[in-house]
């Protein structure tokens, strides 16, 4: 009898809990969306031929689900007083030698379910398996189109849930004159207005030639993006110059040519603010190996009058560690950093955790601990001096969900340049968990708005790197 009661109770509990699970509620309330004004036609390619110039002016709205193509050799220009809004799910195919020049406002408003795509018109096959193709043969570094240029009058550029791929072709004289930029530029994205805002959220940047993103000056917010294969033989993935202020957080970088994030106050314009960048919870994998110049960095870099802070970052097998430059010197009096993690498979990597010749100040909150052994770091360590990193090789495996460390034999550390099937989320046993500093604020100077601004400024997270056990942070 007792068994029956138990069974009934068990069944009842199961039924109650189970039925709760099964019950659903669905509401479908009509909301009215006014039709987009000035929709851009997708009937024919956006063409400049016949106009006698390379310019195709564009404004209005690119509609969800539609594909737009820009004819080879044309510059798609948003004039200074115009706005181009790309609704979620827009594909913009850029022909050879084309550019997208924003002299006014550009908003690519993709969504998680309907991301936008801006890339080459032709289908380019990605070769993402590590070591499957040499960098010189990899189309990621060949600049299939020129890129997106925010000119000196561009007041707002938003890339949200947007893929930007295979850009970085040389601007050339005509394009650069229209955009007010430089003929030799090979940037995938350029922004150059310290009164304007550049916002990049939950987006992907794949490939690139020189600096994939160059901010000559601007108010910036980079949140939760993924960067792959950025820069051919040089170039810092996000390279900001004098007059740039903002935050870079929860970004994932894999296989950048040089640094992932670099801040400099070089060329600060009269009237522009000092470069001030807050960087936190970013993850850098195998950065710095395609840079052919000596000692240029592989993850984070501050130099020449730049100030700011960097906390909670993760650098794995990067050629150089977090770098603060002494000549031309960063604004070290106004720089704060700590709680940063590094991992290295080889002594060549661990020997540069504190890059030799530079002035990064080791912090007691750094991982590995600077008092790990008598060699790491030696007593009386002087900034930039050579030291023996043998003792910390392979220490503190970050325990990513799907990424083997040490990297398997036969493939060099430098060959990892795309995410593919890897997963850099953390196992519950990861030493990165709970080591983060959370008692500071992002530096938000851009407008906050679900469409025409930054939609979500994720605050600093408790776990190091761009993925949090709680699920916040990078959503890719």
């Amino acid at each position: 009898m007792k068994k029956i009661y138990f069974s009934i109770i068990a069944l009842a509990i199961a039924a109650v809990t189970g039925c709760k699970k099964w019950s659903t509620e669905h509401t479908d309330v009509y909301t009215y969306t006014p039709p987009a004004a000035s929709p851009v036609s997708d009937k024919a390619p956006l063409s400049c031929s016949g106009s006698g110039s390379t310019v195709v002016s564009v404004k209005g709205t690119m509609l969800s689900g539609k594909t737009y193509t820009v004819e080879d050799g044309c510059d798609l220009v948003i004039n200074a007083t115009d706005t181009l809004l790309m609704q979620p799910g827009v594909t913009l195919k850029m022909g050879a030698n084309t550019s997208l020049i924003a002299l006014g406002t550009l908003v690519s408003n993709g969504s998680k379910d309907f991301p936008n795509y801006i890339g080459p018109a032709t289908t380019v096959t990605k070769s993402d398996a590590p070591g499957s193709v040499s960098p010189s043969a990899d189309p990621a570094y060949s600049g299939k189109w020129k890129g997106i240029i925010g000119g000196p009058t561009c007041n707002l550029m938003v890339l949200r849930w947007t893929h930007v791929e295979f850009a970085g072709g040389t601007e050339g004289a005509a394009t650069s004159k229209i955009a007010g930029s430089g003929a030799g530029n090979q940037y995938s994205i350029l922004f150059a207005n310290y009164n304007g805002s550049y916002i990049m959220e939950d987006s992907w940047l794949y490939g690139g030639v020189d600096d994939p993103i160059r901010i000559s000056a601007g108010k910036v917010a980079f949140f939760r993006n993924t960067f792959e294969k950025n820069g051919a033989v040089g170039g810092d993935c996000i390279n900001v110059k004098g007059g740039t202020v903002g935050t870079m957080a929860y970004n994932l970088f894999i296989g950048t040519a040089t640094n992932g994030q670099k801040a400099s106050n070089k060329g600060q314009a009269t009237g522009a603010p000092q470069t001030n960048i807050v960087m936190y919870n970013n993850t850098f994998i195998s950065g710095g190996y395609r840079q052919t110049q000596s000692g240029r960095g592989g993850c984070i870099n501050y130099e020449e009058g730049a100030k700011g802070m960097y906390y909670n970052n993760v650098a794995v097998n990067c050629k150089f560690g977090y770098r603060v430059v002494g000549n031309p010197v960063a604004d070290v009096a106004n720089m704060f950093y700590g709680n940063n993690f590094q991992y290295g498979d080889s002594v060549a990597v661990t020997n540069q955790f504190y890059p030799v010749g530079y002035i990064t100040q080791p912090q007691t909150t750094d991982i590995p601990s600077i008092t790990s052994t008598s060699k790491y770091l030696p007593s009386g360590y002087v900034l930039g001096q050579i030291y023996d990193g043998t003792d910390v090789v392979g220490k503190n495996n970050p325990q990513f969900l799907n990424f083997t460390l040490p990297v398997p034999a036969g493939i060099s550390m430098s060959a990892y340049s795309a995410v593919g099937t890897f997963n850099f989320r953390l196992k519950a046993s990861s030493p990165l968990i709970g080591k983060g500093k959370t008692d500071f604020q992002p530096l938000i100077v851009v407008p906050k708005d679900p469409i025409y601004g930054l939609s979500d400024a994720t605050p600093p997270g408790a776990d190091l790197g761009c993925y949090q056990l709680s699920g916040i942070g990078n959503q890719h």
Partner: protein
Amino acid sequence: MESSTLNLIKTGAFLLAFVCLGLVAGAQSIIKGKVTDAGTGEPLTGATVHIDGKTTVNAPVNLNGSYTFKNLPAGTYKLTVKFIGYKASKEYAVEAVTGKTEVFNIALVENSTGLNEVTITEQAGKESDRAVRSLEKNALMVENILSANTIQLLPDVTVGNALQRVSGVTIQRSSNGEGRYAIIRGMDQRYNNTLVNGIKIPSPDDKFRFVPMDVFPSEMLEHLEVIKALTPSMEGDAIGGTMNLVMKSAPDHFVVSANASSGFSSLFSKGRLFTAFQGSPNTQSPAMVHGNSYAATYADFNNKALTSDQSLNNPLSSTAGLTIGDRFLDRKLGVIVSASYQNVYRGSNSTQLTPNAQPTATAAASNVPQFSDAYTRSYSTQTQRLGIHNKIDYSFNKNNKISLYNLYIHTNEYQARQTADTLGLGLNSTLYNKQVTISNRSTLTQQNIYNSTLQGDHQLADKIKFNWSAVYSYANRHQPDRTDFAYDANQTLNSSGAIVSELDNNTKLSHHWENNKDQDVTGYANFIFAPKILNHDVEISLGGLLRHKDRDADYITYSLIGGNKSTVYTNNFNSIPFVFNLASDGVGANNPDLQDNYTVKEDDNAEYLQLKFNPVAKLQVLGGVRVENTLQKYTTQSPVTVSQRAGTSAYTDVLPSLHLKYEISGAQSIRASYFASLSRPGYGEIVPYKVSGEYYDEEGNPYLHHITADNFDLRYELFPGGADQLLLGAFLKKIHNPIEYFVVRDGGPSNQVIKPQNDDGDATNYGFEAQATKFFGVIGFSVNYTYTHSSITTDKLLYFSDPVKGLQQTYVSQTRPLQGQADNVGNASVLFKSGKLGLDMQLAFVYTGERLAQVSPYYNLDFYQHAYSQLDFSFEKMIGKKLSFFGKVNNITNAAAKLYLKYPNAQLSTQLLEFIGKQDIAAQTLVQTDYYKTSFLGGLRYKF
């Protein structure tokens, strides 16, 4: 004519003293006197005085213009004087009387039928008004002249270097120490123009109008004039001054002269070798050969300019010259051909700290300079100059003459620049880790100037003259395949400093071509009417010119990278897999340099009216007005989407001038003058070119206005006789719309570029000049000194630390001198000239005070060149009657050119201090030193 040649020595206090020195006691019969240029009053050193009577003797004319025949048997002699470039004097009958000294002065008339405007008016004046003869020892305006004989004896073989001997002139040197541009009274080359025989010549420079003066071999000159005040008949585009190169003209009898010499620079010995290379076989870029759409690859390039490098120990420089001239057809036809060839090896060793373009700032100090690079550079420059000119003149009759003049100048400059590894000095290196940079550049620059002038000179009526010139000229310049290689590597060192490994180089190679050309077609016409009005001689000149110019320039640079970082450079280019960063970078149409290509057409015309008269006997008034009209059109290769791709500007300038000359006594006079003048912007400056810089790009400015100026001059002159002179002068210039390069905003708030701009404020420039020459028999002293003060106020950047906002940048205005201007400039020379010994010697000293060498966009960070002085020596010794041996020694003391930043040097690190060497001024930082060492030249000259 006759009375003028028999002009007796004017007696004055100075002269008396002078003559006394020359007096010889004793009961001999002596014939002596002076031989001078009838036009300028200059002594004609080197002329030959011939007497024929009871004995036949020749006597040379000394440095001070005097000749002497001693111990002549009493009797009547026929005396004639001959000199190259001058009409032989007529035959004079002179009596030699025992115990007496007969003084007999002769003035020779130039044989030149050269019709430059200057000499025309001069000659007209000369002929029309016998009364002002003595006043016209010099020209109508303020000018300084170096005669052929002075030039021949100078230690200099180019006009560029010879110019530094002229009062008020400093030179700007090229990287091998050779004078290239003249700065006249503190006004840099932009403000000056260059004439050949009074005809303006085009420039082979790719951007500007000014002509590099080091292309002209100095021996081709008959004389060199630096004209500091313009008359209405002269082209009005000179604010500092006009340099007129008057070339040798046909002699009145058969003349052959030849010279050859050889020499060396002491720089290229003892381990410092000269780097010679052969020019690239690719005289044209892939885009020029295959078209702009052609995608070049590494296989299209040839690195011969670098791989053919070879080291020469003490290469010998050589020069040669030949002049042949004669007169035919009853002296109606004169012909002269002159050629000069120079092959000169020069160079410099340069040590340089490069300040970071953007300074830093602390709470305590703004604009603190930082240094980004340290270089040791060695320059090896081989310059080949070929100059040929010829002049043919023909007199149809007394009233009608024509002449044809041709000039061709060609230079090849092979310059190898080698930059040694210096980053290892610690800018970004440590004891165990060293950054290495090596860079080599080979540049061949070819320049050509051609000028052909057909002139006619006609006496239309008793009082009316007409002359005309038809001129075709071109200048071009080519840099075929300038090849630049840079290598950057990281070396790991062990504890004893030995290299353990070398890795990770950044290897770059660039091939660059540039070509530019300036073609000039000009016609000049002048009427001179010389009536007598109210019993005064009046000369009215009316004339003008029409000019059409075609200018173009093209550039292309192919930049390759050393692709594979594992390749260590071991002096072998073939092992480096050079590639384009992007294959599309090899396409000509994508080349960023294309935007700098331009074509300019310019049409100028000018008209003038000039009046010269003497209201009272002692006062000469010359004045008038000139109108210059300029129409410029430029086009570029930019597409229609590019603003400023083409532009036109037209302007008219009305330029009045007034020149007064008051004769205090026969030997003394005072001049006062005013003239208005202009300076046109460079052809390249008005084109919207864009050159990428590390911090700021540099851009052209199509909205540039031309510069105008009001110029005032006052001068006291004393010509006591012979070559002696005392000149004291003062000048004031007010310069409107001066063009300066500074940082401006461009486009949006963030973009800043360096751009030529017209400054809002006027610049002022004033100063005074003194020149004195005095001879004591065979020894002469010549001194000149110029004080100049100029000022201009421009906006500069100030980088400072704000307690709240952090690092900030703002504009502040700064007043400074004009670029290139030195407050104190002087020359001093000692001359020895003995006809008896057949020996001439000269020791020449040049002093250039501190001057602003380079303007920084940042406040207080301008580069100043420290005071520079140089000592040179030259001599010429006759061997027999027709042959002479000559020698020139330059830079005897191995003076260094030094650049300073006016910032205390205490901020330099020990390593940098060790690198740059002794910091000798506490309040300044030495940032660059260039050494050229001493150079020698010796040879033979033959005159028939």
